[in-house]
């Protein structure tokens, strides 16, 4: 048995598939690769593949993490070499590493994610900077941002998402698209979707600029926690 963690990037146009589609794609690629998959016990055995954090539909990513258990020793080199040719161009393995069984699961580890959110086009930088700054300032100055959610029991609950927004800034560089950069709480202990935060900027300012369709969302990095501090995760950890 061998536990391998890997990092991957998802580019356009594959951003248009869901988390489950991405899982299915990885599984079929693994099966085609001929690598010795390990299966779970029980009534309905399935390969032991997990992805650290579901990637929403429409979002590209560069620092995603996944984990797979093999029945025999494979090694990171052979893993990448066998799996890569079975993946479509827009899904790219960027690293792999054998990790110990002692480590907690990836899903349990992830607690934040950094998003880079780019204006698609048609936004005049000069005139928008002030608006963006104002929207971000007003967002970050709030003590609470209450949103209604429907929970798993289909009941309405209210949730304050303000504590989930760790950082939110905008970057404006010559010859580059306007960018929002956000560090948001994520993972099994709760989090907030970047779509919601961008929409929230819009409700404060009433501007069309913050319609989700005008932005391209990219997840750059996943974070864990060590000694109370956020720490970028990689496949070796």
């Amino acid at each position, binding site marked *: 048995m061998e536990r391998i963690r890997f990092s991957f990037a998802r580019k356009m*146009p594959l951003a*248009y598939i869901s988390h489950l589609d991405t899982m299915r794609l990885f*599984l*079929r690629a693994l*099966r085609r690769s001929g690598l010795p998959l390990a*299966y779970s016990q029980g009534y*309905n*055995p399935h390969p032991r593949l997990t992805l650290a954090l579901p990637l929403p539909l429409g979002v590209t990513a560069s620092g995603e993490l996944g984990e797979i258990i093999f029945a025999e020793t494979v090694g990171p080199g052979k893993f990448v070499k066998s799996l890569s040719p*079975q993946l479509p161009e827009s899904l790219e393995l960027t690293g792999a590493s054998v990790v110990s069984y002692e480590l907690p699961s990836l899903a349990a580890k992830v607690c934040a994610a950094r998003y880079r959110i780019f204006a698609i086009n048609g936004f005049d930088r000069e005139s928008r900077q002030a608006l963006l700054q104002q929207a971000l300032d007003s967002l970050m100055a709030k003590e609470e941002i209450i949103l209604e959610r429907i929970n798993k029991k289909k009941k309405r609950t209210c949730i304050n998402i303000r504590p989930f927004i760790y950082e939110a800034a905008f970057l404006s560089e010559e010859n580059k698209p306007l960018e929002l950069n956000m560090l948001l709480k994520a993972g099994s202990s709760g989090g907030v979707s970047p779509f919601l935060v961008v929409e929230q900027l819009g409700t404060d300012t009433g501007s069309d600029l913050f319609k989700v*369709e005008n932005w391209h969302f990219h997840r750059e990095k996943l974070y864990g926690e060590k000694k109370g501090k956020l720490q970028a995760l990689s496949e070796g950890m």
Partner: protein
Amino acid sequence: MPVDNTILKKILARVQKPARYLGNEWNACMKDHDRTSLSMAFAFPDLYEVGMSNQGLKILYESVNSRPEMLMERVFAPAADMEDLMREKGLPLFTLESHEPLARFDVIGFSLQYELSYTNVLNMLDLAGIELYSDKRSDIDPLIIGGGSCSFNPEPLASFFDLFVLGEAEEFLPELLAEIVALKNEKTERKELLARLSSLEGVYVPSLYRPIYRDNLLIDMEKLDSRARDVIKKKFVSDLDHAPYPTAPVVPYIEAVHDRAVIELFRGCARGCRFCQAGYIFRPVRRRSSENIVETVEKLIANTGYDEISLSSLSSTDYPGLDALISTMDNSLSADRVRCSLPSLRLDSYSVKLADQVHHGRRSSLTFAPEAATERLRRVIKKNISEEEIFTALGDAVKAGWHGFKLYFMIGLPTEENEDVEAILNLCRRIRQYFKKETSKSLNISVSVSTFVPKAHTPFQWEPQLDLQKVIERQQLLRRGFRNMPGFDYSWHEAEASFLEAVFARGDRSLAPLLERAWQLGCRFDGWSEHFSFNRWQKAFQDIGIDPGHYAYRRFNYEDCLPWDHLDCGAGKDILIREHRDALSGGLPEGAVNGTHTF
């Protein structure tokens, strides 16, 4: 030039399941348009998930793309949200592979699998910016061709299509396309080109035939060009082992309705159920050899990564030696953790044994189709199983550990009376009582009841459909009955949709304006209950002045001219008349009740 990518991106960000429109899937075939002499778009008039479950698409994709000089790309009906945005932004319908607009292709081939997809055909032509009526199209427009089981009565669509291919096209289509290239190279103008193609066996060019009506009834089809054939015979493959078959089919990113690898065990069916069009139009029975099956399955699994293989056909347990075949494949399939599935089970002990063999301890549910609940009515439709066999098979299944069953029935069958419908309730009740004794587990039985639609080229083609009001009454009878029977999950097909299906299954060319009107009124995806609107259709009937009952309820005489009489599926009229007479005189000839595996 592909469609504008910036616009497409913006649209994709706003629609449900954008991957329906992406293409670029695993094993998709990307060819250079400049390096092929002919381009064909395979158009499936339903959603991507449905079309990508169609084995015909995969077979023809393989058959054409294995030729270096031609290319085939795919296009499906866009869902309503996509259609709205495409119209708003002026984006024409495009293929998945190259994103080229449909209008730029040499040939567009529609797969015609069910009548309720006809409005989608018109909508796709319109979204492609192509004239709906064939006589309005010019030399630079694509040839619009059709195939699939509905082309055995294509008359309601005849005015919109340039030609239909009758029967199985995997060997013939590349030949037809090569012929089109040759004629185009000679700069043959469209009318002449079609006339020349009409001399090929299996090709039906509807514009070369003119229907003649008397008192609103079709009395003859007049041939307008001497090169066209008097009777168009279907094409069929003689040897499945040597016909093109995809061993590396496209693997969708999103879940298709049938999300698995498929091996076709045999084509055709020896059972001869009288309501079943597939049983008649896919004759004769042709088997794939077990060596070919084993080899093909191996390649399929290696090339796709699927974890399930469907052993497909119209009646898979009729494959001789299927148990031995499954045993042969079992070792390598289990090692790869590949599941087998049998899509169509007969209600007999042998089938239950086979199901047990493929399921390896997984006990989901078993599906059976008794179709009718009385032995008399089963004899009429030639579904020759006895009540004893039903109970033995179910008993075997319960003993083997199954406790979920799906049962399919039909109502509105010829000679059916209310008693036959009540017998469905009665049979289900007895099944439950029987199993109370056999097992302590609670049974989970779902019962699905559809409405009989008389289809062309079957012994029931002369029969009218049961009156819509009566269908609804019989459905209510069942609904009331099942309401008092806990443990049954009863579902039924919308009666109005089956009525419309009958109108088009038995219709002729006078339905073309009706179809166009219905499409104009917004009819799309009529096979989907959430989209189907009978009100809109009724408005279309009124606007055009057509009585749909004239088509659905007409009882044809043997001497009458049927709209599909000039099309020959292989089973001659004499056979159909004999089967029809046998049906009405109470069923089967002596001694044929216990069906034998005749191959």
